[in-house]
């Protein structure tokens, strides 16, 4: 029997939610514990929990204080949250097409310059990565990825852009991202994908789940246009491959 893991901090987020915090920093081990707790609570629901929201380093647990109080909920969560991690199960894996550079990735050249290399080399490093969806947040389908090549870590832009296009593929700090809807962003824009991680009348509405694996492959801008039309018509576009 493996020893239990150190307990997370239970931080009150108002009277109807608790933040179960495993780390204060971006930390893949903490994220694994977040996703494991999320899964465990889905498999064996605690009466009173209404919704869970995984993030990089914490699981936000919404609950109904008429059904369970803060202390009682904490007592039920802690033993589950300190269990040794279960063996890694097969994750879904998505191959996401990206049109790099030009109008679709206006920061690609600047990123290459800043890192003393060529745009093609940046594309090779970005498509060479094996990523995990650490969390989805901010706006619908915005998938935050861990696993960015260390040589691509760079701080975010000094001044965020007020609007960046739907489908933007970007990097910021030590993270990579797939953005679905047009939104403000301070990240560096490398390209765009025709894939919609969120599309209202499609089944499934949301493509990615926290814990999914992701790789990118480059497409030319003409292919982007074709795929974009197909995606608009409701096709998934992203390829799901066996893990």
């Amino acid at each position: 029997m493996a020893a239990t893991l150190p307990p997370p901090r239970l931080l009150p987020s108002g009277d109807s939610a608790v933040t179960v915090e495993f780390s204060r920093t971006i930390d893949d081990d903490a994220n694994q514990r977040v996703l494991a707790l999320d899964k465990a609570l889905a498999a064996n629901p605690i009466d009173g929990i209404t919704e869970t929201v995984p993030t990089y380093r914490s699981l936000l647990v919404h609950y109904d204080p008429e059904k369970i109080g803060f202390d009682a909920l904490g007592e039920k969560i802690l033993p589950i949250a300190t269990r040794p991690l279960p063996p890694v199960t097969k994750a879904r894996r998505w191959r996401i097409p990206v049109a790099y550079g030009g109008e679709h990735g206006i920061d690609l050249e600047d990123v290459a310059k800043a890192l003393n290399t060529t745009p093609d080399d940046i594309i090779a490093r970005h498509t060479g990565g094996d990523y995990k969806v650490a969390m989805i947040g901010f706006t619908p389908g915005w998938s935050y990825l861990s696993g960015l090549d260390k040589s691509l870590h760079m701080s975010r832009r000094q001044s965020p852009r007020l609007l960046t296009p739907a489908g933007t593929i970007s990097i910021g700090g030590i993270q990579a991202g797939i953005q679905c809807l047009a939104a403000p962003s301070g990240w560096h824009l490398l390209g765009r994908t025709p894939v919609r991680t969120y599309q209202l009348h499609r089944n499934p509405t949301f493509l990615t789940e926290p814990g999914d694996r992701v790789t990118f492959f480059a497409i030319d801008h003409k292919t982007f246009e074709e795929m974009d039309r197909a995606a608009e018509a409701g096709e998934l576009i992203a390829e799901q491959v066996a893990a």
Partner: protein
Amino acid sequence: MSRLVVASIGPASSVQDGGRLGAQRYGLTVSGAMDRLSLAAANTLVGNEPFAAAVEIGPFGASFTARDGAVRIAISGAPRNADIAGNPVAMDTSVTLKDDETLTLGFARGGAFTYLAIEGAIKGEPMFGSLAVNARAGLGSPYPRPLQAGDEFTVDPASGAPELRIELPKPATGPIRVLLGPQDDEFDEANKGLFLDSEWKISATSDRMGYRLEGPAIKHLHGHNIVSDGTVNGSIQVPGNGAPIVLMMDRGTSGGYPKIATVITADVGRLAQTPAGTAFRFKAVSMAEAQDEARKFAQLIRSLPDRLRSSDTVALNIEALSDANVAGYAVSAVDAGTWQVTAEPEATTRPEAESTP
């Protein structure tokens, strides 16, 4: 079927209900009514479920016309002048609009959002169990955007049920209660004290995503960047400039600024109805008190049907209602015995609400 046509309407008006739960893990925020108690009161008056879809009307005026038959409606929330063909309509009552009649609502007085509920509720195509408008995500039904003049709802014909009023408890007037956390340890005692002991005003640049606060700058212990984590309705985050933002119903589901405190569930609607520019304070309460208040709030909503009264037991004192409204005070429904002006909080005034929250 009858129709209710939006003859005129100001910005920040949309269809809202109890909100969209269960998809925050995909970045989809909850939306829903800014003032849940008022939504529930209006719905209860016309026999709907408390969190059925209704029209959330922003601070400006609006008018609605019945077509192809009569429509039974009710209004609750931020008080305003209301009339049908010149005959005043009281807040917190139901009323039936005959075919071709128009309900005209003035500016909000002493609040921001008024709820217009329709007998049989607004019909549409629920997405994730909700008709609530979330314009950014293209969600909401029958219109996935704020309402415009000319929009219309297909609604049940008026049932002819007797008109009702609802007796709501007097709104609380004290400080907005908060629970410290989840990141109160990102602030030292002096700055936590500054947050709790200062007077705040809501900035006019606020909206359904967040209420920006004007007051002293709150300083962080370790800078303003934390690793993004989850948010709730009422999360109070402190960005780099030190001006707190209370996250409201259209908030991002995650955020990267430290959250010093969280408004308790029972007080979120009261904060939502605080007009821009009005001074108010926060007060920290214990988890036990916050959860007790949350349970009482849930019980209050369940008890609303017991608070319905026949509206013809009260003779409307039109003159007094009109005088009080002209004077700019909020008048409680149809409590003809007292004609009581809603109690004003000591330190606050209620200006004409031209400003949006």
